[in-house]
């Protein structure tokens, strides 16, 4: 009897301890280390990926994605899709106010779309929501958005910057200067930003989710140097960092000082092949180069365990991953490479220039491609080009390159990982590739509403793409978040965004 009592007592104590570890604590300052200084604080002007890290906590979006990349409510509590996928009707959350006291309602949503679509405002969001034809205020809590044609990735687009709602009062007053005094509805409001030094956010007490926002303040600090970013975490100066040095990942997994979260990422990496100029206007030569590359070895040697070999734009976890050849990683085949060289009329090989951006790993990738291709007589000249220069050289309409090593950070809907890159005249179609059959398939995949049908469309697309090879997909990066064990409640989503509204700090 006594023993049983003791056991129960122990159990109670244990459970209490467990509960206290799991009970969110309020207070404290959360210090996050970013990989770069966020340039612009207006979601409708922002282009840098790192901006989005800060936005997650300062803005609410119409919808969000959960860990399974499913669309979940945020500012919109529910929605219906009608008119063959052309009309979206959103029911908006009541009693939501912006940080400046402006009420959030259907009128605010209408203003936000107007702002993004305004040609003179030149928002990078414009192209993402270009299909929006009309935004109608049905009643203060209901907004209806009509699209020109069905667009199944629409909700996914609204789970990112295009769905972040800014205060109409502030945006009208400030115009482009809104970037310096941003006002959203998120659980944290903007306090200050000092370039290359810090961004400070403070809990917004009138946020609609009363339980959100456990920490009092969030302090973001940029660390351009990855080793220094990590050292600051290890020294206890930061609570969490974005993008650890790839070479340190195996050590960090064993390090008791940090809690390391790992998830498959959403992006893809590889090499652009310019199909509108020599030598790669010759498809057989593209196929020859592709057959000479050993993706598994390349990934393992340069990155170790932090990437997965790839053969398409859909990493594990994204819809479309199992579509056609996307996840069938080809074996290296030197005989095929030589046969393709003969077919392309260059039996003794050919030479081309591969542009890479600066960085140790980028150089290693370039050198490995150089040596692998060299075995069949393809001579690769490496040219290191600074990122901004690379972007302007390879982007449409310039296309001034033969091959270029550049990838994509990824989006939660497969469309965002493929459409603009390979559709004729697409804004990201660096290789100037054009295939009417692929265009119609890409458009079809945007209209199809069930996952199964879209998967099938993407399988057809991948069969064509991996035959035509305007891009050689090589690896999919994983996403890592090293953090202090004190940081609790962090939910790691593949998009790599640090969502802090439900995290807290244990003492």
């Amino acid at each position, binding site marked *: 009897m006594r023993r049983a009592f003791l056991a129960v007592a122990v159990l109670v104590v244990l459970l209490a301890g467990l509960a206290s570890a799991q009970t969110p604590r309020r207070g404290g300052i959360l210090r996050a280390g970013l990989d770069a*200084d966020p340039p612009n604080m207006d979601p409708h002007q922002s282009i840098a990926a790192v901006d989005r890290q800060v936005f997650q906590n300062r803005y609410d979006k119409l919808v969000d994605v959960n860990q399974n990349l499913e669309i979940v409510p945020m500012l919109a509590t529910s929605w219906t899709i009608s008119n063959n996928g052309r009309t979206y009707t959103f029911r908006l959350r009541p009693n939501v106010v912006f940080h400046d006291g402006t009420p959030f309602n259907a009128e605010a949503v209408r203003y936000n779309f107007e702002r993004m679509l305004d040609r003179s405002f030149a928002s*990078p969001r414009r192209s993402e929501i270009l299909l929006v034809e009309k935004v109608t205020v049905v009643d203060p809590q209901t907004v209806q958005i009509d699209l020109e044609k069905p667009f199944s990735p629409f909700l996914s687009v609204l789970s990112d910057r295009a769905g972040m709602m800014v205060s109409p009062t502030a945006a009208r007053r400030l115009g482009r200067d809104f970037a310096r005094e941003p006002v959203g509805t998120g659980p944290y409001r903007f306090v200050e930003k*000092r370039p290359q030094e810090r961004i400070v956010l403070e809990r917004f007490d009138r946020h609609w989710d009363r339980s959100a926002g456990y920490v009092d303040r969030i302090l973001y600090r940029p*660390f*351009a140097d990855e080793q220094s970013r990590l050292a600051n975490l290890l020294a206890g100066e930061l609570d969490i960092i974005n993008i650890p040095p790839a070479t340190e990942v195996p050590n960090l997994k064993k390090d008791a000082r940090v809690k390391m979260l790992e998830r498959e990422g959403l992006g893809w990496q590889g090499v652009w092949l310019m199909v509108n100029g020599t030598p790669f206007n010759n498809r057989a030569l593209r196929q020859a180069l592709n057959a000479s590359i050993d993706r598994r070895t390349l990934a393992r040697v340069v990155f170790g365990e932090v990437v997965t070999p790839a053969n398409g734009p859909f990493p594990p976890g994204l819809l479309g991953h199992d579509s056609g050849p996307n996840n069938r990683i080809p074996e290296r085949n030197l005989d095929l490479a030589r046969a393709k060289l003969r077919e392309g009329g260059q039996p003794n090989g050919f030479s081309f220039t591969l542009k890479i951006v600066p960085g140790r790993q980028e150089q290693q990738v370039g050198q490995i491609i150089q040596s692998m291709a060299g075995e069949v007589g393809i001579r690769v000249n490496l040219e290191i080009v600074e990122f901004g220069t690379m972007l302007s050289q390879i982007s449409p309409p310039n296309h001034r390159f033969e091959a270029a090593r550049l990838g994509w950070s990824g989006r939660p809907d497969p469309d965002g990982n493929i459409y603009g890159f390979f559709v004729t005249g697409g804004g990201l179609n660096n290789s100037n590739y054009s295939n009417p059959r692929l265009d119609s398939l890409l458009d079809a995949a945007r209209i199809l509403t069930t996952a199964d049908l879209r998967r099938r469309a993407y399988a057809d697309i991948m069969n064509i793409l991996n035959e035509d090879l305007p891009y050689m997909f090589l690896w999919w990066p994983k996403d890592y978040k090293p953090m202090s064990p004190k940081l609790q409640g962090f939910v790691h989503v593949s998009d790599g965004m640090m969502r802090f509204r439900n995290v807290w700090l244990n003492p």
Partner: protein
Amino acid sequence: MTRYLTQRLLLTIPVLFLVSIIVFTLINLIPGDPALLMAGGEAGQDVVEALRKQMGLDRPLVVRYAIWLGRVVRGDLGKSVRDGRPVLDVLRLKLPVTIQLAAISLLVSWCIAIPAGIVAAWKRRSVVDYTATTVALAGVSIPNFWLGIMLLYLFAVNLRWLPPSGYVEPWVNPIRSLERMVLPATVLGTALAALVMRLLRSSMLEVLGTEYVRTAQAKGLADRRVITRHALRNALIPVVTVMGLQLGGLLGGAVITETIFAVPGIGQLAVQSILTRDYPMVQGVVLFSAVAIVFVNLSVDIIYSLLDPRIRLVEARS
């Protein structure tokens, strides 16, 4: 003296004018389109064109320069293309950081170099001399990024004696401000010290061989007095020149050290602005650096005349 100063100050105007033309031309020669970098690859051509227009990039270079110059004369350095922040505001934010880091780094450098240089010259070809020379060689050879990361791991991660990064204004909290300066200033200071020490040593050796030093010794003056009063003062002239150059360099920003220790100074600002093709910001930074170097040179000239009264500051006559 006043006339001399006025003349020198007036001379800086054509210098700055020339610098601004060179910078304006050079940054526009760099490949890369700021509008494209701002809009990102996803944006359509129309968005990029609209941005180019907003940034005034659709106008010819000469017109853009004239507009910029007209504004600078009125004290307006323009706005950052990243988020419209006035360039002057950002410079004002970075200035105290860079000046503080430069000053402390120089101080560290002098504390090491001056005693070491004197002793190495005085005890020439002794163990002290060889040790100082070896250490100096190491100081010059060790790259800043390596020393920085090593000190960071040793003192901030493992021993936890010092904070690893950041900046606190001295008027907010002088102690915490100084703590954060120790590591970066040490990295910068040791590299600078090496050169100063070697220079001071050879300069001292030369002076120690002169007749007036021998006379002083013959008079029976104490070694200490001979060195500090007679030798050092004269040996310092070439050294001051180098120190001036070093200070000018530091005020232009210590990019690598600032990056490793996340010191938000001019160097990081310059690199970020170049990478994002933030033309107005780059021009502002370079203009500031040019002004800083001109003024440091002027100060060096004045210090010469204080060290050696034979050197007079005379205005040029035509």
